[in-house]
């Protein structure tokens, strides 16, 4: 019985590989051998249920680690001007992170609206934290973020983060979020007006400051995010929900 031994290492994380927004290379080719093996008639019967159970148990560890934020903790400010060190401040908690700038009235509110919808799908008892990171520190000072949160009626518990350019950039780099300023026009007072092109993304962190999944922000499926959160919860606590 060489077949099951051969497919085991490749198949291990098959059930948890991301299927949407992946920019990271390698995930596709890693999956291919399993598809090939699956096409062989009767392989599941030969392998038997115990092995399948073993495979599933191995994959219960949840999605692969995309990035480890503990490698470069960043010191940011929330909307109350309180220092928040990411990821240390969220240790032990599952975190959903969206990336926005407050002068963006179309895509960014769509991402924020998605986060709200996702939050409605996730039980409060899981203590998931919701964080919006601004990539426009020049305009999005803490008081601007606080006012924005009020106008948009965001939950009090949400943290809106800004901070020094270098700190923010370090975080965005680890998150794989790209931004580019585009100058468009001049306001009446002669001030230049800019928008920011940016990656449309929501990220999921585990309780150890590691990025475990990226979603396309405007279209992230709340049900899928809920399942990922439950998987991380089970991984951390051993408790099936």
């Amino acid at each position, binding site marked *: 019985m060489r077949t099951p031994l051969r497919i085991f290492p490749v198949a291990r994380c098959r059930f948890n590989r991301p299927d949407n927004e992946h920019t990271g290379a390698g995930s596709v080719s890693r999956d291919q051998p399993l598809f090939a093996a699956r096409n062989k008639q009767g392989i599941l019967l030969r392998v038997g249920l115990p092995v399948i159970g073993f495979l599933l148990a191995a994959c219960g560890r949840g999605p692969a680690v995309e990035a480890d934020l503990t490698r470069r903790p960043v010191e940011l400010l929330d909307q109350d001007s309180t220092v928040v060190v990411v990821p240390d401040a969220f240790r032990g908690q599952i975190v959903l992170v969206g990336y926005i700038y*407050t*002068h963006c*009235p179309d895509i960014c509110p*769509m991402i924020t609206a998605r986060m709200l919808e996702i939050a409605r799908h996730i039980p409060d008892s899981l203590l998931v934290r919701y964080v919006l990171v601004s990539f426009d520190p020049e305009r999005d000072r803490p008081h601007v973020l606080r006012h*924005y949160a009020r*106008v948009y009626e*965001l939950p009090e518990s949400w943290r809106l983060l800004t901070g020094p350019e270098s700190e923010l950039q370090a975080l965005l780099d680890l998150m794989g979020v790209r931004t580019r300023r585009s100058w468009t026009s001049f306001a009446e007072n002669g001030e230049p007006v800019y928008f920011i092109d940016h990656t449309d993304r929501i990220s999921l962190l585990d309780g150890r400051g590691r990025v475990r999944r990226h979603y*396309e922000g405007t279209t992230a499926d709340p049900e899928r995010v809920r399942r990922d959160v439950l998987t991380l919860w089970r991984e951390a606590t051993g408790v099936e929900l």
Partner: protein
Amino acid sequence: MKPVLSELLVAASVFFGALPQERSIHLLDPWIRPGAAGGNSALYVRLHNAGSVPDTLLEATAEVAARVELHQTVSGPGNMRRMEPVSYVVLPARGEFRLEPGGWHVMLLGLKRDLRAGDTVKVELRFARAGRVQLQAPVRPLSRGGRR
């Protein structure tokens, strides 16, 4: 006789189309994003053209904003999103053009006051044929209208 009559009808519809009472342009389900004073907001609306000829949305104005532009959100590689000004939007004859999240919007820049859910905002759109058409858009909370 018949061709003459139809030409007259077309001429009449063009003529009356320019008058406020006989609009061929209907602005359906307008709504607007919340926004902070000094910040920006976006107006979404279904532009319905009941007329037999296309029309063009040329510009918009709103007393609540310092400037108003027509914008399109464009996607680039790697899920990059970008807003771009557009100079006009064409409404097909007997058809509709939708300004909706993730697509086109009327961009309100430099808000003069906060826009909160429940507020109403007056916006005037100017069309090549139909001329100026006003609308009143309610500010919708984020919990509604996040969808594409």
